[in-house]
């Protein structure tokens, strides 16, 4: 059964770059959300196994998504993908339940390494 992946970023280019960096041999179905609210709608619909989450977004940012997910018993793998590369942003995101933090711009090797490291992809 394929893994359900949600790519959350307000930038269509960033979503495209992330999708391109996902392993071609990973059996997945990919949905996109352009803000935190859309991400939460998809999550609550119960169809998200892995969420790639940007931090800096209008409407509902990545930290607010992590906060809400924690309040609702986080039940998916969240990998933060952010241009905000401050150590405190990384610590804060990991402290709020994200399993990994990937700096933008993403690259295929970096994404594959993270997926393998956390057992999301064998």
């Amino acid at each position: 059964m394929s893994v359900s992946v949600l790519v959350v970023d307000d930038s269509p280019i960033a979503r495209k770059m992330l999708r391109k960096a996902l392993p071609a041999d990973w059996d997945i179905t990919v949905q996109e959300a352009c803000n935190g609210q859309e991400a939460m709608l998809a999550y609550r619909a119960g169809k998200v196994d892995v969420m790639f989450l940007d931090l800096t977004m209008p409407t509902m940012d990545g930290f607010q998504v992590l906060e809400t997910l924690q309040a609702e018993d986080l039940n998916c793998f969240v990998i933060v993908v952010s241009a905000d590369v401050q150590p405190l942003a990384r610590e804060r995101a990991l402290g709020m339940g994200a399993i990994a933090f990937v700096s933008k711009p993403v690259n295929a090797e970096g994404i594959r390494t993270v997926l393998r490291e956390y057992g999301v992809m064998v």
Partner: protein
Amino acid sequence: MNASANVLSGDQTDALQEIANIGMGQAGDSIARIWQQFVELSVPRIAIVEADRIPALIHHFVGDGLVSAVRQAFHGGFRGEVLVVLNTGNRHELGALMGYDGPLEPHEEEEMLLDVANVLAGACIGGIARQLGADMGFSAPSLIGTDLDAHSVVRPDELSVATALCVEVCFNVKIHQLSAHLIALLPREEVAALGELLDRFLCTL
């Protein structure tokens, strides 16, 4: 704000916004390491503006209150000018974050503002250029002034362009009520060069 119609295509604008976002992240990290504070980052804003509208746009970005401003030109893959506009309500706190003790002498304040601008502009514009595969050089930054009204940071008659592409990012340190806005202005004739670089970037996706 995303009004860059007729100058950049929708895809080019989206690419510029994301590339500016990454450049801003690198600049935010650089200044956060100096200030030893967490810096909140905004979503970059892009607009095409006529020169006589630039003062109002800067006021729209920065808001009311007095500001200090520094300008720095850049050249290479594309040419333009960066304005770094800081709120000056807490200049002593900014001085402390920059490692100065006690009240600032005027020359220390100028030195501090130039340093902040240099770090932000170098990291942000340098980061944008790197992603676009462009070399970029910078002139020395110069102080426009302190205790300025946001409307008077630039005068339209000082600008050598009739229309400019404006990219704005904001860095905030909430506990010190400190904010710095970086506004990059590209003359309209430089937008074609930027557009070519953006097209090359888009072809890699």
